[in-house]
């Protein structure tokens, strides 16, 4: 019971460093990240946005089975990835593809799951990026375990664990925060509150003053931040990681943002929200305000802007090429990884399938 209750509570208003018109905002607790950090952040936003939109297009072309877009949430995505150190871990959800790629995971590998080739197409240990979790909030507990293992070995790894507003209602959210607090595990829980869980608005999800207010019930210091403000996101996530790394135990961040597109391509968002509401959030777009600020400050010039666009073009082209090609995942994989070694039952079933495939192809 180290923290006083007051010190755990979030600020009444979300922390903001650049307002929606691109003007700097004074904040007594956080200072503006330095120019190069901001510039890198902006570049990642441009690339991230392109990834979202390219993937969305690939779904419509039938090249991907599904893609939950984070269009509108790119500042959260980028900050979660860029604030990490080399030994830190990221725990993403299905929605956090941009964070995963920003962290450095091979985009084609990432898309394997959305294409339907395999469940996870990259090696989590190589990148220190967990699999993109579908069962909501379950990954938060994994993050606590990973972080605690590092602590036991005396390593200074921090885990950043992402979830949505809806996922905070799951029991696993509660158990993860409590385990983290009790074991003082270096985990930063980052809630992307994008106002909806599929069709269900926040007001039907929680009656709390804010989702960040959940921290106090675990003894976890909690923070609210404008999730469409890349500067504030980098500052707040960066500081939370620093706190966790310094032995301050877990931290909770609620980032206020908005999902600009439907939940996935299978969803029809017009059934549950108005065009007006969406338009209002359009004004708070994370890219345009960052661009305005950086341009006004002379940090972003045409040359670097062009560089980012080129980078985005390249990754989009890579995705189109790789996903445009035919692929046919090897059915033998089905049996290979269920256990370290296939059981005799699996060997029988594999033989049956091979035989079927052979006869099919005759």
């Amino acid at each position, binding site marked *: 019971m180290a923290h006083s209750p007051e010190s755990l509570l979030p600020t009444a208003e979300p922390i903001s460093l650049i307002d929606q018109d691109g003007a700097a905002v004074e904040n007594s607790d956080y200072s503006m990240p330095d120019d190069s950090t901001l510039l890198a952040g902006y570049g990642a936003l441009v690339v991230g946005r392109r990834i979202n939109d390219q993937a969305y297009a690939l779904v419509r072309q039938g090249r991907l*089975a599904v893609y939950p877009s984070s269009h509108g949430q790119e500042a959260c995505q980028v900050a979660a990835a860029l604030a990490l150190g080399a030994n830190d871990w990221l725990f993403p959800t299905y929605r956090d593809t941009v964070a995963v790629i920003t962290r450095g995971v091979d985009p084609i590998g990432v898309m394997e*799951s959305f294409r339907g080739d*395999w*469940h996870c197409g990259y090696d989590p240990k190589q990148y220190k990026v967990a699999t993109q979790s579908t*069962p909501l909030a379950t990954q938060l507990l994994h993050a606590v375990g990973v972080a605690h293992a590092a602590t036991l070995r005396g390593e200074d790894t921090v885990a950043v664990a992402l979830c949505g507003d809806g996922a905070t209602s799951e029991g696993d959210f509660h158990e993860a925060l409590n385990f983290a607090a009790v074991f003082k595990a270096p985990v930063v829980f980052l809630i992307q509150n994008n106002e909806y869980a*599929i*069709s269900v608005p926040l007001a039907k999800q929680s009656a709390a003053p804010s989702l960040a207010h959940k921290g106090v019930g675990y003894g976890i210091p909690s923070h609210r931040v404008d999730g469409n403000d890349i500067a504030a996101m980098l500052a707040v996530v960066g500081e939370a990681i620093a706190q966790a790394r310094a032995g301050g135990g877990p931290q909770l961040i609620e980032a206020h943002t908005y999902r600009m597109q439907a939940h996935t391509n*299978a969803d029809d968002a017009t059934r549950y929200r108005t065009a007006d509401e969406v338009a209002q959030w359009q004004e708070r777009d994370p890219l345009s305000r960052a661009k305005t600020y950086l341009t006004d400050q002379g940090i972003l010039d045409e040359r670097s802007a062009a560089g980012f666009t080129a980078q985005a073009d390249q990754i989009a082209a890579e995705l189109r090429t790789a996903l445009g090609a035919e692929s046919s995942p090897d059915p033998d994989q089905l049996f290979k990884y269920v256990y370290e070694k296939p059981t005799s039952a699996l060997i029988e*079933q594999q033989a049956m*399938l091979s035989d079927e495939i052979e006869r099919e192809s005759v």
Partner: protein
Amino acid sequence: MTALLDRTINSEVPATSKITMAQALNRALRESMADDPSVLVFGEDVGTLGGVFRVTDGLTRDFGENRCFDTPLAEAGIIGFAVGLAMNGMRPVVEMQFDAFAYPAFEQIVSHVAKMHNRTRGAVKMPIVIRIPYGGGIGGVEHHCDSSEAYYAHTPGLTVLAPANAEDAYWMLREAIASDDPVVFLEPKKLYWAKDDADFSTPRPGIGRAAVVRDGTDATLIAYGPSVVVALEAAEVAASEGRSLQVIDLRSITPFDDETVCAAVRSTGRAVVIAEAPGFASVASEIVARVSERCFNSLYAPVRRVAGLDIPYPPPRLERHYLPSVDRILDTVDDLQWEDA
């Protein structure tokens, strides 16, 4: 609340018609809600959105927020809440969004929903229907295609139903809602949009009854839910190859209709069980075991299974290798020791 009773039913389909299973289920929900004000429908996205499969489409609009509503995103919460509502006079019909997302509610289902009636010597009834869109064949990604029936069927106290066509979907859901026992109602996702002829005037056989859906004399295919369709296809192909296959649609996994199933198998002397779930320790195992135990002296060949492989459900582009197929069924039938007959 009783005012809701007077509401005209906005059934979007006439009494007999070509109808999808999703529509048939919607109709069953509407009529049950109209008949009984204690029927409540809730879950994730079932209100405004009408459910991700649109099975609850329009129910909030037509019956109000008190009768059909969205809950916070927490499956144990949904089921535990349903237990309390049932304790206090309501008949909850809840939706688990996808099969694998019912697992967080496992304790509430196994330790309370299934056991409360027994625990209280029948004093507290659990008239709860847990609707679970289940099974594969829709190109769904991980966690969206599990066939989880064995977990429920193994749990005494639960009734486990799986319709295989729109008409049964309608009648079985109405019966499930009317039942004072808790029902796990498994809706085959891949059949949601299949159009069927459906007769809404003549009730189908009740809970606990299987149906012979195709007559045949050489061997019996026993299936339920999505596999019934594949079994019927296989029987059609077999017929063209000169083999007469009988097809049983189990409909009710628990209670199990030993009478119909055993009579059928005794009549042919051969049987193949078809199911999507991994075969090990499954409902298919049970059927093989029961039929082998009870019909031993009538069998010309071992009862065989065409079940899901004993692997996690595959990614979309590999699922066809996993699912029971017509060819795999026919290969298995070919194997039934015909030379010994």
